[in-house]
C-alpha cells in the first residue's frame, strides 16, 4: 500500500514527462487503433444521453411555459427570462450565491496556503504532516445534507447550543439563532469552509512539493528572505494549481444547494438571506404548478454565467503562463 501511495505523489511531479506512453507507436499497434473508439464509446453515449441532451432540453424548456402537470407547453420566447430579471428574488439569489462562495473561499485558500507553507518548510520541520492532513480532509467526504441538518438541530430554539448557553449563564434566554441573517449566512460559510479547507491544503501542498528545491537554494544564495521566495517563486509556480482550485471551487459554489437548503426552511430564510441559485431553481420547480419552464430559465442563466467565467479564467490566465 505504501509503495503505491509514493507512486501517486511522484506521478504528480513527473506528469510533464509522461508523453512517452502516447508517442510509443509501432506498426503492429497502429492497426488496432480503431479500438480506441470502442473503449470510449460507452462514455460518449452516456454523455450524449445524460449530459448533453439534458443541457439542450433545459435550454429548450426555458423558452416554453411547460408545467409539471400540463405536459408540454407552448413557445413563449424570452418571457421566462424577462420575468426572471424583473423579480428582485433572482438578483438576490445570484448575489447571495456569490457572497456565500467568496466568503468561504477566501479563508479556505488563506488557511490552505498558510498550512501548506508550514507543512513544506524545511526550517520548521513540522511533524506528522500526513496525520494533520488526513484529519483536516475528513469533513470533505461527509454528507453535506447531514452536516446541514446537524447545524440546524444544534442552533434550533430548543437545541443544544441554546441549552448550553442558558445553563452556563452566558445568555439570559434562548435565542432564535437561525432567524438572524448574519448567523444563518455565517453558518453556511463556516460549513462550506469546514468541508473544503482540507481538500485545498492537499492540492496546494502537492503543487508546492513539485517545485524544485534548487530554485529556493539559489534564491537563498542571492539573499532572498522567506516572504520574497514565497512571493516570487512559490506563488508564480503554484499558479496552475491555484487556478484549478479557484475555478473548480467557483463551479461547485455556484451550484450550492444542500447546506443552505437544509439549514433553514428551504426557502432561504431568514428573509431570503441564504437563498442560492439552485434553491431558486428548485422553488420554481416545486411550486404548486411546477413551472419547469421558469425553473429551466434559472438553470440556463446560471449555467451560462458560471461556464463563461470558469472557462474564461481557465483559458485567459493559462495563456499567459
Amino acid at each position, binding site marked *: *500500500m505504501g509503495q*503505491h*501511495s509514493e507512486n*501517486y*505523489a511522484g*506521478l504528480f511531479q513527473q*506528469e510533464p514527462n*509522461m508523453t512517452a*506512453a502516447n508517442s510509443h507507436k509501432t506498426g503492429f*499497434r497502429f492497426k*488496432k*487503433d*480503431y*479500438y*480506441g473508439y*470502442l*473503449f*470510449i464509446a*460507452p462514455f460518449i453515449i*452516456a454523455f450524449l444521453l445524460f*449530459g448533453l441532451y*439534458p*443541457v439542450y*432540453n*433545459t*435550454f*429548450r*424548456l426555458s423558452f416554453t411555459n411547460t408545467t409539471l402537470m400540463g405536459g408540454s407547453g407552448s413557445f413563449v420566447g424570452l418571457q421566462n427570462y424577462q420575468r426572471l430579471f424583473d423579480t428582485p428574488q433572482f438578483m438576490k439569489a445570484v448575489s447571495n450565491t456569490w457572497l456565500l462562495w467568496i466568503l468561504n473561499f477566501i479563508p479556505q485558500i488563506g488557511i490552505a496556503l498558510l498550512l501548506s507553507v508550514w507543512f513544506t518548510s524545511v*526550517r520548521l520541520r513540522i511533524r506528522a504532516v*500526513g496525520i494533520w492532513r488526513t484529519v*483536516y480532509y*475528513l469533513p470533505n*467526504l*461527509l*454528507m453535506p445534507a*447531514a452536516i446541514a*441538518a*446537524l*447545524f440546524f438541530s444544534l442552533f434550533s430554539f*430548543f437545541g*443544544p447550543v441554546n441549552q*448550553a448557553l442558558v*445553563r452556563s449563564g452566558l445568555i439570559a434566554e434562548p435565542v432564535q439563532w437561525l432567524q438572524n441573517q448574519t448567523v444563518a449566512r455565517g453558518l453556511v460559510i463556516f460549513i462550506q469552509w*469546514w468541508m473544503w479547507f*482540507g481538500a485545498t491544503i*492537499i492540492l496546494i501542498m*502537492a503543487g508546492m512539493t513539485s517545485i524544485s528545491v534548487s530554485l529556493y537554494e539559489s534564491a537563498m544564495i542571492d539573499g532572498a528572505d522567506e516572504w520574497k521566495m514565497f512571493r516570487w517563486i512559490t506563488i508564480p509556480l503554484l499558479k496552475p*494549481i491555484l487556478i484549478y482550485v479557484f475555478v473548480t471551487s467557483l*463551479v461547485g459554489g*455556484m*451550484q450550492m444547494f*444542500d447546506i443552505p437548503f437544509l439549514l433553514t426552511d428551504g426557502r432561504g430564510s431568514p428573509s431570503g438571506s441564504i437563498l442560492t441559485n439552485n434553491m431558486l*431553481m*428548485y422553488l420554481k*420547480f416545486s411550486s404548486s404548478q411546477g413551472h419547469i419552464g421558469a425553473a429551466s430559465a434559472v*438553470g440556463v442563466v*446560471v449555467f451560462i454565467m*458560471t*461556464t463563461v467565467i*470558469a472557462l474564461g479564467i481557465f483559458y485567459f490566465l493559462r495563456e499567459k503562463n
Partner: protein
Amino acid sequence: MKQTHRSSLTLFRTLIYIFLFGLVIVTIIPIWLVLVNATRSTLEIQQGLSAMPSTHLFDNYGILEGRGLNLLRGFTNSLFVATFSTVLAVYFSLMTAYGIVVYNFRGKRFFTSFVILLVLIPLQLSIIGFYQFMSRIGLTDNYASLILPVIASAGAVFFGKQYFESVVVHDLIDAGRVDGAGEFGIFHRIMMPIAVPGAVTLGIFAFAAAWNNFFNAFILISSIEKYTLPMLVQLMRGDVYRTEYGAIYLGLAVTIVPIIIIYLIFSRYIVNGIAMGAVKE
C-alpha cells in the same frame, strides 16, 4: 545571538502546533457531537454537551421507527445506489481512460481536452431538462436515473488517464497480443488487475459522491420506500422529529459512519488520489 534565534523558532513551532491542534478540534467537534449524541437520550442532550457516549442508542432507533422513519430501508437503498454507481463509474471511467492512453485514434486529443473541459462545466444546472427527459422515458422514481449518468464521469476519466499513464506497460500489451488475447481481453485480464490501486481510489470517491448525493435524489425520487439516506435526513428536519434530538443524531450518525470507516481504512489512497485528480496542464 544564535541561541535567541533558536528559541524564537521553538516558540513559533509551538504556536503552530497549538494552531494545528485547534483546527483539529474544530474539524472533529461536529462529527463527535453526532456520534456521541446518537447514544444519548433527548433529556441528556438537553442537559448539556458531553464528550462521553451514553446507553440510549437502541431507544433512539425505536423513536425513529415509531414515527415511521425506516432507517434500515434508507440505508439499504443508499447502499444499493452507491454500490452500483461505484461499479459503473470505476469500470467505464477506466475503460475510457485506457482507450485514451493506449490507442492513437483520430480525434483523441480533442476528446481528451473535451473531458478536461467537462470537469469545469456545471452540469447539475441542467437537472430540470434531465428530469423532464427521465419523466418522458419513464425513469423518474427509478434508481436508473441516479445510477446510469455516472458512466460519463469526466473527473474520473481524467484521474484514470493520469493513472494509466503511469502503470500501462506497452510490452505487456504486446505480449498479450502475441498470446492471441483480444483488445478487451487485455484490458480485462492484464490491465485491470494492475490498475486495482487506482480503481480503489476512484471507487472511494465514486461511492462517497453517490452516497452523499441529495439534490438528484430529491428531484428524481418520489416514493418514500425508495428514499435514500440524505432524503431521510431531510425528513428528519420535519416537525414530527423536531425535539427528538437523540433520534435525529442517530439518523445523522448512520449516514456518516460508513464513510468514516471507509476513510479510516483507505485514507492513504484518498489523500494521494486528490492531488492526482487535479488538472495540472
